């Protein structure tokens, strides 16, 4: 289970409500990646985090909030010496991740979309959705 720690246990943390605007989310991602760099995280880990968080952010804005500018996205993130935790919540109706077709199934392989969640699960140490599916929590354990 993805575990949030108290704020005083993080080297760096963020807790922001942003409008349904990818650029606002990317501002936070950029800050996060800068922090990972400052803490000396491996390039491969930084790539993994950028990929997974980018996919989760786009999913929240595009699929969750349906690009509705009246809706918000909540981003909470904490970075410790060895772990990154991030949670993204949209104001959409949610979904069941189990309903997403396997993009590696030969029947789906040439679909132009549907790979985001799979990439999140592949590149992060842990990915969890809440029951309604409008919140994703992810963890990345730092490569030793």
């Amino acid at each position, binding site marked *: 289970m993805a575990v949030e720690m108290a704020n005083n246990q993080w080297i760096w943390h963020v807790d922001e409500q942003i409008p349904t605007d990818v650029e606002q989310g990317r501002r936070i991602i950029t800050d996060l990646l800068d922090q990972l760099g400052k803490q000396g995280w491996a390039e491969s880990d930084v790539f*993994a985090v950028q990929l997974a968080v980018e996919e989760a952010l786009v999913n929240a804005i595009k699929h969750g909030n349906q690009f509705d500018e009246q809706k918000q996205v909540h981003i909470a993130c904490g970075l410790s010496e060895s772990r990154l935790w991030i949670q993204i919540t949209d104001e959409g109706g949610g979904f069941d991740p189990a309903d997403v077709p396997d993009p590696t199934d030969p029947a789906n*392989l040439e679909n132009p979309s549907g790979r985001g969640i799979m*990439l999140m699960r592949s590149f992060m140490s842990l990915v969890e959705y809440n029951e309604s599916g409008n919140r994703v929590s992810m963890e990345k354990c730092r490569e030793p």
Partner: protein
Amino acid sequence: MASHRHLAMTEVGDVAVVRFLDRKILDQANIEELGKELSSLVTQEGRRKLLLNFEDVDFLSSAALGKLIVLDKRVKEHSGTLKLSNIRPEIKEVFVITRLNRVFDIYDDEEDALKSFG
């Protein structure tokens, strides 16, 4: 030859070698434009042999993968050949995880890719 905002094309023999001008291919609007530019190489400029060189690309999102799939279909519809090269290891891993390495013809470097066109 049409001008492009997101890619630079050179000709090596009859192969159109394409390099990307965006180091990070993630913005949706840019990806849409990039997709159109790639398609236009085939549909408007009549290119039938395409090599996409990813040496200058540090990052791409799954939406960008989608545009590559669409391009691949477009190339095949026009009886052409599409190959990819110089993909950095982290991005190569994305192709492997998604099994798109089975869809695309991927080479370590441009020279090997060009030789494979025959």
